[in-house]
């Protein structure tokens, strides 16, 4: 290997090491940004966990079990509400919220226009909201 070739090899070595080190710094920064707002579940005491889980209800004394039960019940209500819709309304809702398709994809699947899908979806959500409201009012009475 001539001297000139050796110099090229050294340049190559430095270039590769610099590129890798810089990429590594980028990855570290990215990871740090991601973990900045994360906390571990083990860091919380049981009291804190319960409080966090029941925060949305404004009830400090609710246990995790209670909270889960309430969540399941609420899901059941939601399920009933969706069941009460007609089939034309159910499909877009299911595709959108369960499978994560967007309006254009749903329009292609159901052979409708995008506008129509959007309108159906909004109307269905409105109907579900009304159903839940009425259901809750009945319960409270």
């Amino acid at each position, binding site marked *: *290997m*001539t*001297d*000139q*070739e*050796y110099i*090229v*090899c*050294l340049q*190559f*070595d430095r*270039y*590769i*090491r610099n*590129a*890798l*080190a810089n*990429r*590594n710094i980028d*990855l570290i920064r990215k*990871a740090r940004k991601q973990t900045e707002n994360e906390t*571990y579940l*083990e860091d919380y005491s049981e009291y804190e966990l319960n409080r966090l889980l029941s925060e949305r209800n404004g009830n400090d004394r609710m246990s995790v079990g209670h909270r889960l039960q309430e969540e399941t019940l609420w899901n059941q209500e939601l399920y009933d509400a969706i069941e009460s819709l007609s089939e034309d309304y159910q499909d877009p809702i299911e595709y959108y919220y369960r499978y994560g398709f967007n309006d254009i994809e749903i329009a292609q699947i159901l052979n409708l226009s995008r506008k129509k899908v959007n309108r159906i979806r909004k109307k269905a959500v409105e109907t579900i909201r009304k159903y839940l409201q009425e259901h809750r009012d009945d319960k409270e009475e």
Partner: protein
Amino acid sequence: MTKKNNERRKKVVPFNVILEAKAGIPEAIMAVVKHYESFINVLAQREIRCSDGSYRKTVDPDVRDELLIKLMQAIKAFKIYMNDHDVDI
């Protein structure tokens, strides 16, 4: 070039291997990857939290893969200048 001079030199990837790797020959690329494997493993070390709350240093496979991709890109992007002009493969 004397023997003594050769011994003093740093261990680098041979010139012809660099040229072949730049041209995209798999064996040459593998040779370059092997040369930088230990360096990548050192860079890719991350602290991982164990279940008992302590921290342990291990090689993060995702980071290692990212660095390997970067290595491939860098091999391709490296430009060789000899006698003040670009040597293009």
